[in-house]
């Protein structure tokens, strides 16, 4: 259809009167976009209709202006109050979600740590009992058999080491329970580059304490280690190594300011800079 045919078709009048379907109106808009004649005809028809509408102009009664402006001001204030309220609600929800998430994590991890603690206590009692028996045996033997004595001493030493390890695990487990219960800690999930797994990090921003849960981290070859970095103003700070599969939260070097945390895989030895090409998990904070 030529522009003149379109102008004579009567479709432009129906378009201006809003009497075309959406698809038909779209066709007219496309046609007018590249056609000055059609565009001009539409504008003329719109101006004519506007002139007709303007014949009915009427100044509103006195007093309407004040009412309208007052209404608008009140609505504006209400909208602002609503926006502030929504913002506050959003912050509350976010905080609640963090607490909720911590609570969920606590629900899962707490029993693990409590069980670990109980097992550790039983183990400690058991080792203490065995230690006592070993002492008794040693006294009972009371012979000058040096081999027996040596063997008992070795057993006693091994038991002592095991007791120290159990005590240490117990302390870590109890500390983990404390962290999970403490609402000043925020749980932050560091995420692997492919998004398939998370390494939880607990950060108390006010005192700078940082803990990492390495329970589900993968084992590494003996020459490799996991290294945590706290990144502030683009500068990575070494926060220490993380041991995988530990069933308690591992305390890291603290920081009060960080825009990101990254866990990288490094070769064992002196580590000064992160190998960001070997990122295991990372999180950028808002």
């Amino acid at each position, binding site marked *: 259809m030529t522009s003149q045919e379109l102008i004579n078709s009567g479709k432009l009048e129906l378009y201006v*009167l809003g009497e075309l379907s959406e698809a038909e109106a779209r066709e007219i808009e496309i046609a007018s976009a590249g056609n000055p004649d059609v565009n001009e005809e539409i504008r003329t028809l719109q101006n004519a209709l506007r002139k007709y509408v303007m*014949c009915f*102009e009427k100044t509103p009664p006195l007093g309407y202006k004040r009412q309208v402006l007052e209404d*608008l001001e009140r609505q*504006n204030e209400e909208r602002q109050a609503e926006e502030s309220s929504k913002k506050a609600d959003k912050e509350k929800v976010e905080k609640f979600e963090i607490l909720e998430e911590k609570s969920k994590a606590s629900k899962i991890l707490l029993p693990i740590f409590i069980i670990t603690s109980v097992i550790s206590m039983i183990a400690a009692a058991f080792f203490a009992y065995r230690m006592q028996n070993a002492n008794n045996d040693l006294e009972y033997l009371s012979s000058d058999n040096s081999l027996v004595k040596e063997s008992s001493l070795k057993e006693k030493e091994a038991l002592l080491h095991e007791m120290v390890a159990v005590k240490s695990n117990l302390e870590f487990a109890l500390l983990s329970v404390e962290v999970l219960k403490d609402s000043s800690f925020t749980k932050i999930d560091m995420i692997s580059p492919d998004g398939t797994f998370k390494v939880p990090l607990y950060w108390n921003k006010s005192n700078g304490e940082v803990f990492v849960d390495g329970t589900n981290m993968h084992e590494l070859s003996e020459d490799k280690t996991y290294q945590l970095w706290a990144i502030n103003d683009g500068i990575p700070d070494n926060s220490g190594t993380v041991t995988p599969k530990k069933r308690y939260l591992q305390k890291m070097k603290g920081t009060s300011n960080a825009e990101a945390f990254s866990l990288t895989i490094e070769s064992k030895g002196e580590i000064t800079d992160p190998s960001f090409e070997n990122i295991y998990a990372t999180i950028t904070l808002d």
Partner: protein
Amino acid sequence: MANTAKEKIQDHIPEEALVGLLRGKDQKALEYLYDHYSPAVFGIVLRIANSEKAAEKIFKEVFSEILKRITEFNHKTEKFFDWLLRIARSTALELVSKRGFKQNNLSDIVQLKVQEGILGNSEPAVSRDFLNNLNPEQKHYLDLIYFQGLTIDQIAEKFNQPANTVRNKAKGALHMLKALHS
């Protein structure tokens, strides 16, 4: 931005600057909007509501709607005044439809009020001449479409006429407007 526009607000404010100030809820811009555009808006609302009492309520809500939707305005696709009239018309029609205000035989009222000098205030003589050059049937169709928001098919059904006849009469009315305008 605001300062430059505010300095000019006493006299004239370009559309784009006005829209920017309205988006920022600038009080002087609101007053400017009211002072310059309220007669056009009130005229449309009054014609659609067909009663001073209903028009008063709708008029306030139309202004509120204009402010609420000011972020939708795009000066590249439409003139501000045309956008304003479009929002005023659609909001008033929607409110009238929702609240069940009656809109009986507006054309007769238009004719009567124009004759009585009730409608039209800024250019009453010019408006009257313009309107008087339209025949009652043409005014009737324009009113049904613009102020009552009826489609061709609805008019055809309401007045028991073929849709094609209604369509041709509506086009003829707009043609007459165009002729009078040019």
